[in-house]
């Protein structure tokens, strides 16, 4: 153990002098065994002082303990790592590489592959720039020795509509079968070594890029655009995992990022889905489970780890890079949490602890039909008698008593408007026959609203036109509409609710 008890600067040997101070807030009285701690303030804030080698052990141990404790990833299971190139996911990749190497203690036993979604099209990057970034990343991926896929986000327009549906898990994931699976694996059931190559990526089509940009451009606010982008990305990741037989998807979100995400979700109305959006495992898709193994690491720890151990990262801009603070809710939450963290150092860990205590309302991963079309979480718009949703509906009703004769000149048109701003206002109420900008199967905004959860409804509200939605979403919306019409016809003969058994 390193000389942590005696505090900073007391050790004479330069190699063993502490190089890192990590501030952690412990809920329990005692910090983890094996690490000595100097209690600095009365607020149960502990400052841990580390030497280089101990820090690596601490980091590695935490990563493996998270995976091992929850027994979520079975030995021999195919796991997809979603790597964006940023510091957090790069650290995750490095940890997985180390964990799988033969010499590792308690080595990891799953079969990883890498997926990277190239979002340059959505951000308006040039083709040359995109290719440059992707080839930098491919160098890193090749060095890891795993199979990798680099997929442009434009592919999301070609997805099948099954991607927004829940599929049953492909094999038994019960906790008792975990031990059995470990035993089988230990007996050396021979596994073919991975070739570690890239799958040739499809050629980028200009028109697809334009459609994608139009889709994102139809979201009037940056908040809605960012949410839409992350939804599309999630769909594409899940589809990739599903079609290639991966049952787990590892995301590299750190503690700091998840604390900001929690606050953002609360502000967006996603209170019912907080556990799924920020928890360790997210089983909303059924067969593909999203896992967040980096959620105990703060951004600072990851940054120091990457710096100390030379983990390569590639910085790719996102939608809100270099945007002012009030450009979007996500951006505002981030700057708020960072600012608060300076005055109250336990903010991030406190928010993180709050997220651990939450669960999904209504027992989570169940009912097929009651799922949101976009985010695949359970729909939370059953307006209880006295609820915020009810209050909002009442307000809308009270203010729009005569939609037919009135021309709305205010800057924010009510949800009932049907035309996109670019086509000019036609002044006709939504649901009127023959809206002027419709083409053959354009969905009605109002009908789509019924299929969405509260926060996705807000995204839709911010969209000026739904004409650019990808085909798979439109098709799925149609299918659900037909199904609910069918159900209404036969409702008196149905004995029990679908999916209730």
């Amino acid at each position, binding site marked *: 153990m390193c000389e942590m008890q005696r505090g900073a600067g007391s050790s004479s040997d330069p190699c063993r002098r502490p190089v890192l101070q990590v501030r952690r807030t412990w809920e329990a009285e005692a910090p983890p065994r094996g690490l000595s701690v100097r209690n600095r303030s009365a607020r149960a804030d502990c400052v841990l002082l580390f030497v280089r080698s101990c820090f690596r052990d601490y980091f590695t141990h935490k990563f493996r303990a998270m995976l091992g404790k929850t027994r979520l990833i079975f030995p021999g299971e195919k796991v997809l790592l979603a790597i964006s190139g940023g510091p957090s996911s790069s650290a995750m990749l490095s940890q997985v590489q180390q964990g799988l190497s033969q010499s590792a203690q308690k080595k990891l036993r799953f079969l990883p592959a890498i997926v990277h979604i190239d979002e340059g099209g959505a951000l308006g990057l040039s083709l040359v720039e995109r290719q440059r970034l992707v080839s930098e990343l491919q160098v890193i991926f090749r060095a890891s020795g795993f199979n990798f896929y680099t997929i442009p986000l434009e592919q999301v327009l070609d997805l099948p509509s099954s991607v927004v549906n829940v599929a049953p898990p492909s094999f038994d994931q019960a906790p008792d079968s975990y031990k059995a699976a470990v035993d089988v694996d230990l007996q050396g059931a021979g596994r073919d070594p991975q070739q570690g190559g890239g799958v040739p990526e499809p050629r980028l089509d200009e028109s697809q890029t334009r459609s994608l940009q139009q889709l994102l451009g139809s979201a009037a606010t940056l908040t809605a655009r960012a949410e839409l982008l992350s939804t599309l990305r999630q769909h594409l990741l899940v589809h990739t995992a599903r079609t290639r037989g991966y049952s787990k998807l590892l995301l590299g979100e750190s503690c700091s990022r998840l604390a900001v995400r929690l606050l953002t979700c609360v502000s967006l109305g996603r209170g019912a889905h907080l556990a799924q959006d920020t928890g360790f495992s997210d089983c909303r898709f059924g067969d593909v489970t999203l896992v967040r193994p980096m959620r105990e690491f703060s951004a600072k720890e990851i940054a120091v780890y990457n710096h100390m151990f030379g983990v390569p990262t590639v910085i790719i801009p996102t939608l809100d890079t270099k945007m002012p603070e009030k450009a979007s809710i996500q951006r505002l939450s981030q700057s708020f949490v960072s600012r608060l963290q300076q005055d109250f150092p336990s903010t991030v860990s406190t928010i993180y602890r709050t997220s651990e205590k*939450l669960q999904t309302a209504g027992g989570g991963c169940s009912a097929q039909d009651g799922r949101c079309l976009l985010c695949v979480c359970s729909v939370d718009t059953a307006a209880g008698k006295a609820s915020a949703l009810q209050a909002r509906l009442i307000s809308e009703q009270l203010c729009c008593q005569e939609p037919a004769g009135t021309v709305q000149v205010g800057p924010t048109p009510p949800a009932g408007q049907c035309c996109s701003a670019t086509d000019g206002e036609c002044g006709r109420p939504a649901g009127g026959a023959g809206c002027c900008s419709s083409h053959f199967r354009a969905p009605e905004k109002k009908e789509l609203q019924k299929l969405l959860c509260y*926060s996705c409804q807000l995204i839709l509200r911010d969209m000026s036109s739904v004409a650019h939605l990808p085909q798979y979403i439109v098709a799925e919306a149609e299918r659900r509409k037909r199904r609910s019409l069918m159900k209404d016809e036969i409702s008196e003969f149905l004995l029990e609710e679908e999916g209730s058994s």
Partner: protein
Amino acid sequence: MPVSCSSCGEKRAALKRPKTGHSLCKECFFMAFEEEVHQTIVNASLFKSGESVAIAASGGKDSTVLAHVMKVLNERYNYGLELMLISVDEGITGYRDDSLETVKRNQQQYELPLKIVSYEELYGWTMDAIVKQVGLKNNCTFCGVFRRQALDRGALMLKVDKICTGHNADDVAETVLMNVLRGDIARLRRCTAISTASEGEGVVPRCKPLKYAYEKEIVLYAYFKKLDYFSTECIYSPNAYRGHARTFLKDLESIRPSSIIDIIHSGENLSVREGVKMPVQGTCSRCGYISSQALCKSCVLLEGLNRGLPKLGIGKHHRLHGKILSQQPLTEKEERKLKSVEF
């Protein structure tokens, strides 16, 4: 070009609703505002006919508007309620005495009986004296805890069935945010409830009829109805933690006006995992008030003030309850920790 009201279509619009962005004329706005409060009251079944209800009045905009709207709705829809005003005097010179004058004026305008309870008579301490001992950082805790009990005691003295407070949508949203930031899972679950539980002695249930009304709309209502209220910030409040949540909320509202209702929706739909430790309601062994610990918070705070240990009550103190109850002196180490105060 004059905009016409989107509700009646006839008159010229005088304002734009912060909540939905619609342009409305004055009368339609009054009607919409009052209707919404009425719908809230009816949907949540807040009152029963024949009950006596105390309106917690501080002289500020929320309670003034609440008193006005409650009176209007009581007559319009025949709720059959007996209304009265109750006000708390914390003993803050320059702030509370002015707002109390406003409350007295309200009483005359609405012809409702008024009762004033003061910290001085209930606890023997005014907020000015408390701040001198405690400093400016944790004083809001004292004021809030004492006020809650003061309202309950006043309501018991008046023998009313319910209390209604003027908490608006912004307050509830700030509370949700604050509880997330503070990690207070127990309060997070309860804070979006529109009325508190009604069982137990010594507890008068309280409700928030204005829960879904935006603060800006309340000000608009008061402005157009020419209601008289006192609008200064408490002089001791600038360092409160709630200020951070409030700035965040104001910024959120400027990005997306529906954020306030969205946050309340999030708070209502939160679900806590089983097995998370939750406080259990009991009674205080000293004063009999409801409490989840052996001693209620105001007894602990009072004890700290009386003994000259201002930090007793801020932070974790349940281990000292036994000692306080049995009147034992605290050890020197404990005393030292509790005395230090940063101004």
